[in-house]
């Protein structure tokens, strides 16, 4: 680049030259950024790194920079990890996200509250009911309505079933990432049963749109108790299988014990919640700490361990499945009779049969699905415990039928930041195990 020139002294020719030069630099920068990403990290071009701060100078020329993902079998979707390798050891690493960005939070500003849960349910697609629940709770708090007891119990039942299926998914993928392919199929086997049950109750396997502001979409189907208890037994048998297959397996322990350790302080600094935080000996569970729904009325324990390694995170999720089964059984036992949604026709639609006979019902139905309901101006933040940690919903309402702003605090996004401290000095295979133990859902990371 030529010397800085005072703008006023520039002749037209010089100015053109300078512009050309800057254009060339900009083109080169864009080329580097859109080309192989690893080049961003090499010496001399580091000032062009735009994300996540600078990396220190490479220590030697012996290292290799490798991109794991976004197309890689064990990056849980489209996570990309830039790694600098010295042989097999990671010198440093950086998670690059944004490959699944779909603008859901912005979309939410264009959707009415009635449509909102259809949107949020697609963020964390492994536990969609948590997303729906947190959105519904936030909306209900703004509306200042109280949901009937039965609706709350149904919600709790569903969310816990969803927690089971999500943790089963973790067991499956975690096993596969460590090379235990049988574990993947076992995990999938039980998850399939859980999803089948959710389908029986909600009508869909994923993205249920079942928990809505004002209650749930429908009452529980006939014979749901038997189905739920049957699935509980199946999953319990499955947990025994996993326990026998992996927990005491010496190779599994070699691969996981002491790998990817993190401390409570680091977790708190980075805002990490859920099983990762609990694995460090900090029994923080919003179901106990800030109770919502009917959690104070059921009996369950918060599972936590002391070591904060991959093995502990595996065990925590395994035992949390058992705790969720406990809650589900109590839900079956204590499910009260009553209504499954508020009977406020401004918030929930009238029964289908009433539309044929009542003009008022027809109008309510029409108004609800064309204009939605107005939510008083205000803002709120509601947080619940999703399988991955604290999922929060922040809504700013401006008095119309659509949120002015909706933000979801996705636990995966925060948890993913724990990867960098955990993989420090680990090996490639450890990095895979660590990312797997974070259990990120990229849909939620990018939203």
């Amino acid at each position, binding site marked *: 680049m030529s010397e800085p020139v005072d703008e006023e002294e520039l002749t037209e020719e010089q100015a053109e030259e300078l512009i050309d030069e800057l254009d060339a630099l900009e083109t080169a920068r864009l080329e580097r950024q859109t080309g192989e990403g690893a080049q961003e990290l090499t010496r001399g071009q580091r000032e062009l790194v735009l994300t996540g701060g600078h990396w220190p100078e490479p220590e030697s020329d012996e290292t290799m920079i490798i991109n794991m993902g976004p197309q*890689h079998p064990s990056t849980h979707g489209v996570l990309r990890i830039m790694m600098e390798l010295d042989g097999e050891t990671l010198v440093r690493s950086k998670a690059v996200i944004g490959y699944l960005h779909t603008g859901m939070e912005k979309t939410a500003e264009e959707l009415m509250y009635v449509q909102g849960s259809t949107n949020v349910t697609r963020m964390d697609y492994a536990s969609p009911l948590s997303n729906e629940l947190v959105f519904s709770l936030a909306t209900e708090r703004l509306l200042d309505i109280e949901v009937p007891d039965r609706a709350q119990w149904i919600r709790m039942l569903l969310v816990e079933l969803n927690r089971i299926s999500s943790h089963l998914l973790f067991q499956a993928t975690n096993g596969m990432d460590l*090379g235990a*392919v049988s574990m993947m199929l076992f995990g999938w*086997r039980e998850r399939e049963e859980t999803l089948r049950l959710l389908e029986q109750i909600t009508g869909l396997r994923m993205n249920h749109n079942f928990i809505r502001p004002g209650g749930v979409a429908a009452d529980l189907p006939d014979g749901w108790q038997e189905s739920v208890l049957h699935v509980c037994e199946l999953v319990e048998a499955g947990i025994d299988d996993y326990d026998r297959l992996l927990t005491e397996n010496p190779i599994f322990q*070699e691969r996981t014990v002491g790998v990817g350790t993190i401390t409570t302080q680091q977790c708190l600094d980075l805002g990490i919640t859920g099983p990762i935080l609990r694995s460090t000996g900090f029994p923080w569970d919003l179901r106990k700490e800030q109770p919502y729904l009917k959690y104070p009325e059921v009996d369950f324990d918060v599972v936590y361990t002391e070591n904060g390694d991959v093995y502990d995170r595996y065990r925590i999720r395994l035992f949390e499945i058992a705790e969720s089964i406990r809650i589900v059984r109590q839900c079956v036992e204590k499910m009260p009779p009553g209504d499954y949604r508020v009977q406020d026709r401004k918030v929930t639609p009238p029964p289908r049969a009433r539309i044929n006979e009542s003009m008022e019902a027809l109008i309510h139905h029409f108004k609800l699905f064309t204009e939605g309901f107005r939510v008083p101006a205000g803002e709120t933040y509601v947080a619940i415990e999703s399988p991955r940690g604290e999922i929060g919903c922040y809504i700013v309402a401006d008095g119309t039928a659509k949120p002015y702003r909706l933000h979801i605090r996705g636990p995966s996004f925060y948890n993913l930041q724990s990867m960098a401290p955990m993989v420090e000095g680990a090996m490639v295979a450890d990095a895979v195990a660590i990312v797997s133990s974070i259990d990120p859902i990229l849909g939620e990371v990018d939203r």
Partner: protein
Amino acid sequence: MNPGRLLAADPLFSNGIDLTVVLIVIGKTIAVFVLLLVLVLFYIWFLRKVIADMQNRVGPDNAGPFGVLQALADGIKLFFKEQTIPDSADRRMFLLAPYLSLLPAFLAFSIIPIGGVVTVAGHRTLVQLADPQIGILFLLMMSGIGIYGVMLAGWSSGSKYPLLGSVRASAQLLSYEAALGLAVAAVLIQAGTLSTRGIVARQLWVGSWSTFGDWPVWNWFLWPTVIAFFIFLIAAVAETNHPPFDLVEAEQELVGGFHTEYSGIRFAIFFLAEFMNLITMCAIAVTLFLGGPAGPALGFVSANGWINAWIMPIFWFLTKLVILLFGTVWVRASLPRLRYDQLMDLGWKYLIEAAFLFAMVSGVYVIARQENWPGWVYVAAPVGAVAVYAILYLCIPRRDELSEEIR
């Protein structure tokens, strides 16, 4: 000793070489090649079916009865698929590498005794392609050459994951070749010969090949060398890059390892070579430890009839082979993958010492028997070996201690 004797100790050549002999040799070559290919196809189907059963699945069931033709169908599909070569690849090496790994895999199988002695067109011959006197050394040679295919494939792909895979492959082979060789040495000391046929003959009650009527199980080298047997199996699985030692192509870490950039039939050839290697290693284990094709003959038919001369030895050989292959499938279904440094630890810190000490104890026993040494030697040798192993075990720093030092 004439050179022919060095290469092949087969009664076929004892009366000179004529056209029939040449044809028999060609026929045997084709037969062994076809057998190995059929074994690979069978093994792939067997693997998928057994693993499917262990994982509550159905497995392949469309192509042919019970899906037995699935592997063949996959092979045909791969044969007609487009084969890509990356721009960054070293073309010549990239094209050569698959064949470099296939050829040794096949050659190594040629020394396996598959059956007993049969008479074909008036010539007595071994059911075995070659019986060189260097026998087992030939196997070690071939497995050493075979790794070039993997190494060059990874290096010539001009891509990072394959490179990591091939680096892992060469390190893994180096580490486990030693343990494998020492485990084999324990048997060789007992057998006193390198020839595979000779080793099998030593495992019969009588050195004669015509008697399959005895039940020779107690004469197998498995019993005096049981530790070497397990070391051999571990090292063999590690050397052929099969789970739980499949770090070379660890899908979850290196995408596909050394064959990431390969497609079509070249990719299939790598797979073929890999399964061939596994089958060869299991066949070698059968030969070294389980008496090879030896087994009881059928008593109700003529002892020298075609059933007892042809079918039964091959039947016993294949039975033992399938049992070992089932073991590999079982391990594959139940164990997670080891990490690179753990693999090295297992090889260098545990297996090599154990195999070395066991070979020495084995040697002491053989010599003590020949020289009529006093009885206490038989106790002192293993006790000493265990003591040495214990001292080594305590002296070798653990990984966590090492990493403490580095920090």
